[in-house]
């Protein structure tokens, strides 16, 4: 079963890469941008058929490795 996880920076954490992307977009005439925050996206194929269990496994992975909870949040967004 494939599970996707999105890791994003917490609100108060400085994201200089997001800022540069924002400025670049403005330079390219995308004028309607309020803010850009850069994050990470993972697709994990878990050897587990129960969606609830598979999700729990990926949550555990996020807590222990994929995200650093001091600065990042994670969201399980998709189950296939």
């Amino acid at each position: 079963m494939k599970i996707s996880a999105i890791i994003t920076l917490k609100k108060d954490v400085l994201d200089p890469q997001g800022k540069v992307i924002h400025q670049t977009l403005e330079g390219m005439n995308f004028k309607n941008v309020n803010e850009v925050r850069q994050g990470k996206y993972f697709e994990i194929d878990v050897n587990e058929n129960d969606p609830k269990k598979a999700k729990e496994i990926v949550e555990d992975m996020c807590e222990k490795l994929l995200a650093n909870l001091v600065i990042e949040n994670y969201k399980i967004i998709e189950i296939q």
Partner: protein
Amino acid sequence: MKSSVITFPGSNCDRDMDVALKKFGFKNKMVWHNDPELPKSDLVVLPGGFSYGDYLRCGSVASKSKIMQSVINFAKSGGLVMGICNGFQILVETGLVPGVLLRNKYLEFICKNVFVKLDNKDNPYFKNLEKDIFEFHIAHNEGNYFCTEDQLKEIKDNNQVAIYYCNNDGKIEEEFNPNGSIKNIAGILNKEKNVLGMMPHPERMIDSCLSGEDGSLFFKNLLNNIK
């Protein structure tokens, strides 16, 4: 005194650290990341570099490598563990010291000499040092120290700041902050003061012909403190 330097795939300051430790009298052993146990040590050093290519987050993969469980146990039983640069990034990922190291504020890799000021000498690393301001070298892309407000309060309350970025007079101000670190913090101790993580490289300051001697002062003093 026995020291161990851990080599991870991608470490590149491990041999510099080995040279520095031996120069000042440590009997040093190089330890591979996949070894199960630390040799008997009075000091363990996590060196600088780019362990595991900085994949995922700097230091995150190394923090889960086989030898690290032994290093964590050593630190928790009071053993001295020092992480320099990437070693500091590994330490924050293990949770042995609080906070994280973010990308430098201005997105540049910084490679230059900086001055740092010792905040307190009530620890085995800086005890008995005669001066407070040291010139060390930094070379990093992710050295922007960050922690939550609660963590910062705890760090201050427990005197856990090891060093601050400053100028040659010891002034700690934003203009002397190379990477955007919160409060100019360049190095942090754990609560018990036996684990030190810092971005600057003392091992690059051990030769008067090539650099400066402030690293020599640090290592000589460290050896005497451990004896």
